[in-house]
């Protein structure tokens, strides 16, 4: 028997809102409230609030913090030298395979915060602490830290109203302090939906107060993990466990943009350089699948031969069609290449498209 599921500080709020709770990465999380499609559309058209307290937060402090992280993570930390800046990055093993995808925030002098996937919490912590020099302070803040995402075209206006006069929202991929309804927070202009919005970090004890303050705006809809998945896949954002894992390198995953060619000396760099030189054998592509819903693990065929399987797959509420990602041989990765997907007893057509599947959002505007 596995351990009991963990609950976030917002568990009671979800029950009161009539959420359907499901197990996810060891946590009992809301998959939906009113309905996935309704919540998805609310985020695209107005604003949605998500409990993402299950995610892990680590803080790294000390004179060696920059050098340590520069050697641990793929993206170039020089790009966020300025305080309050953040970047999407990867942590690789020695073979160049992906341990986790992360956001690293330059939160203070000599100080960084990492937000990591819940499912990788223990593995990340073990890897980070095993590689850290002794003179760094590294703290797992996850248990006492809450994370609430407010996403959608109305999100910035709402958080600005909550922060009060004189507060200005951070720019895209930046983080700053605020006090929202008396709650001291960090507001990061990041997210996983393709909409403009923020992810708000606060003390766990204040989470419910903040959640209620946000939901006091009638234009905000509570949104669950179901909508989070359809929103992120419409943008082609990869999900750890589906689109990448400890067998996948960043080049095959299409994440070369967070692994700058000029950077050397980080863990996995030599392996990545080899893949770049030889070229990856397979590549993650986007597929549209009219009239059916592809699900992870289903076989992907080209001219009757199985060439891969669905990595992520769902119904796109915006396009009202099936969308998916899959690893396919590089020779078949060009947009327009036809495939078939085996969906139970049927074989349906699919075609390669270059993500995002949905290109017009408040971020693209």
């Amino acid at each position, binding site marked *: 028997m596995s351990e009991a599921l963990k609950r976030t500080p917002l568990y009671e709020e979800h029950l009161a809102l009539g959420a359907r709770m499901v197990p996810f990465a060891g946590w009992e999380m809301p998959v*939906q409230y009113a309905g996935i499609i309704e919540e998805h559309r609310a985020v695209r058209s107005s604003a949605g609030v998500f409990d993402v307290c299950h995610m892990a937060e680590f803080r790294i402090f000390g004179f060696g913090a920059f050098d340590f992280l520069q050697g641990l993570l793929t993206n170039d930390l020089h790009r966020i030298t300025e305080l309050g800046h953040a970047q999407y990055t990867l942590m690789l093993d020695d073979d160049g395979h992906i341990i986790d995808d992360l956001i690293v925030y330059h939160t203070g002098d000599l100080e960084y915060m990492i937000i990591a996937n819940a499912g990788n919490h223990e593995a990340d912590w073990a890897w980070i602490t095993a590689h850290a020099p002794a003179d760094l302070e590294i703290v797992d803040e996850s248990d006492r830290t809450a994370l609430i995402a407010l996403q959608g075209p109305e999100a910035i206006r709402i958080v600005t109203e909550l922060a009060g006069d004189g507060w200005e929202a951070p720019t895209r991929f930046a983080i700053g302090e605020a006090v929202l309804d008396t709650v001291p927070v960090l507001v990061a202009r990041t997210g996983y939906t393709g909409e403009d919005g923020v992810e708000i970090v606060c003390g766990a004890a204040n989470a419910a107060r903040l959640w209620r303050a946000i939901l006091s705006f009638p234009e905000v809809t509570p949104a669950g993990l179901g909508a989070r998945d359809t929103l992120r896949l419409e943008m082609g954002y990869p999900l750890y466990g589906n689109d990448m894992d400890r067998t996948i390198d960043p080049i095959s995953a299409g994440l070369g943009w967070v692994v700058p060619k000029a950077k050397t000396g980080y863990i996995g760099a030599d392996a990545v350089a080899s893949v770049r030189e030889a070229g990856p054998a397979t590549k993650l592509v986007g597929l549209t699948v009219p009239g059916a*819903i592809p699900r992870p693990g289903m076989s992907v065929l080209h001219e009757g031969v199985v060439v891969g399987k669905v990595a992520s797959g769902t119904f796109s509420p915006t396009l009202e069609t099936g969308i998916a990602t899959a690893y396919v041989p590089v020779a078949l990765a060009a947009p327009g290449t036809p495939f078939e997907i085996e969906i139970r007893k049927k074989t349906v057509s699919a075609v390669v498209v270059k993500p995002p599947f949905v290109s017009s959002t408040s971020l693209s505007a």
Partner: protein
Amino acid sequence: MAHPNDRVYSKEHEWVVADGDIATIGISSFAQDQLGEVVYVDLPSEGDSLSAGDSFGEIESVKSVSELFAPVSGEVVEVNSALSDSPETVNSDPHGDGWMIKLRMEDAGELSALLSAEDYDAFITEG
């Protein structure tokens, strides 16, 4: 949640309204609520022959897919083709416009093996 008592129900959550030898079949309000917003309904063709317990199609929401099972035996005489364009009708009106197929029953006696509304409500409460 009480289900209407003008029909009978299967333990697979289909309902049947019988009119002479014609059985109209859909899924219960409970079933559509469990599924969530329905996005595809895959139904058989007119003329198909079904035995009680046969899978006659699939119903799919964003998160899950369920098979549909014939509660009685017979020949498919009509399918609700409106559901291919408006699958959400299964959510908004599961016992009415969200019906799925009509069968010409081989043996109306099979209906007696199905549950009354009261027994079905008790069945879903037990889980």
